């Protein structure tokens, strides 16, 4: 997998597996692979290489989908006006 498929975000550094898949770009790339595979200008070797690359991306996308877990945070403005996020704790029910 090439570097451009992986997008690390600075705020993810505290999480294990900090590198994250750019899931939507991966799906778009996969769809591009399928459409090239359907085209006339790919020779057989090229088609097999595309297929291999597609399988690899599919696997990555499926793994991401099964494991990715988002965070719920709350945005706080400090007294100095800076913005901070901290984990959101569900408040007591108010109905």
């Amino acid at each position, binding site marked *: 997998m090439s570097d451009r498929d992986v997008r690390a975000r600075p705020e993810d550094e505290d999480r294990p597996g900090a590198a994250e898949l750019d899931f939507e770009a991966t799906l778009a790339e*996969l769809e591009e692979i399928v459409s090239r595979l359907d085209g006339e200008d790919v020779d057989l070797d090229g088609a097999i290489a595309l297929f291999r690359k597609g399988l690899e991306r599919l696997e990555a996308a499926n793994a991401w989908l099964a494991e990715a877990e988002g965070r719920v945070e709350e945005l706080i403005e400090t007294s100095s006006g800076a913005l901070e996020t901290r984990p959101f704790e569900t408040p007591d029910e108010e109905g």
Partner: protein
Amino acid sequence: MSPDALPPDQIEFFEPVRPDGRTAQRAISVSALNHATQRLLEDRVPKLWIRGEVSNWNAHGSGHRYFRLRDDDAEVDCVMFSGDAWRLPTDPEDGMEVAVFGQPTLFAQRGRFQVIVRQLEAAGEGLWRLAFEKLRRTLAAEGLLDPARKRPLPGFPRRVAVVTSRSGAALRDVLTVFRRRAPWLDVVVCDCRVQGEAAALDIRDALSRAARLPGIDAIILTRGGGSVEDLWCFNDEIAVRAVAACPIPIVCAIGHEVDVTLCELVADLRAQTPSVAAELTTPDRDAVRARIAGISGGLARGLRRRIERGRARLSTCERILPGLVRARLERAGARVATAAGRLHALSPLATLSRGYAVAVDDGGTVLSRVAQFEPGAPFRLRVRDGSVRATTESVSDDDRRGEGGAE
């Protein structure tokens, strides 16, 4: 209260007195009269609803509103202080039928009878409607309701800000939908008040904080159901303009389906409820899985088709190749025959066979001129069936024909 004011129980207000010099000694001051009357009115007449037509409406710079309420036969001065008047969605127009809730009293300083109005309602939702329509027209004139302004939401947002009350049911609904549909989503809650006097400013500030946060793909502005008055801050010009100016695609869901606020009209997308707003913002996990399955099938089909195309080409080759080779061989045979014929016609052997001889030197060069013959030098004569060694005896030009010859 002025120093002339007396506690009401010391004023024998309703005691009938004869107007004579003796009772004149007991005269009270104007202030005492007015204050006592004010007290009397406020003690004996409760706050109540009064209906009538608005006239002489005057919005003072202090935020207080002064006006008169009248019917065909009577009118009364009214004042609504700023602490209550802020709640008005807009100022009523003169001639509007309204009901006011307030305290009839005497404005002691001027001795003027008036109603201190705490609440003012136009018939039906008249005033809300009026305010809504006024601002809606302004927004429309500025093009802020133009459908062409609506931006598409990102197809696959990774980080969404939710601007709402952190303790409200709306947030709970939104988070529940996100967890179910898009567990990968990062959510940032931006708390703000969603009703009351300061809510519009709060909404504006929370939106601006959310927009300053890096990596936010979409914003949801939402709150659950409530009265028209509760939801009013979402029709407040400050909040509405903040939504219209939001640099990030924004979905707005305020109250129930029947409630339409101006914030929703200027947002990129309006949702009927908070849950629907969350649904419209994220793709469903099952839909994403289906998309991946589609891609997976497409890959396999693509490769299979590609292989089948190759196989078809190969079998075409197999079928036409023998024919091509045969034709090629036949063409080559014909060319060889032609070339052989021409070669034979041109060959010196044909000439030799008719009795001619060719003189060549040892290197094989054809000797066709007398200058090439050195007297005494050896050469060879090619004849039909071999060659003859010879020596030049002498040479002569054409005019001396017969003097030389080969032996």
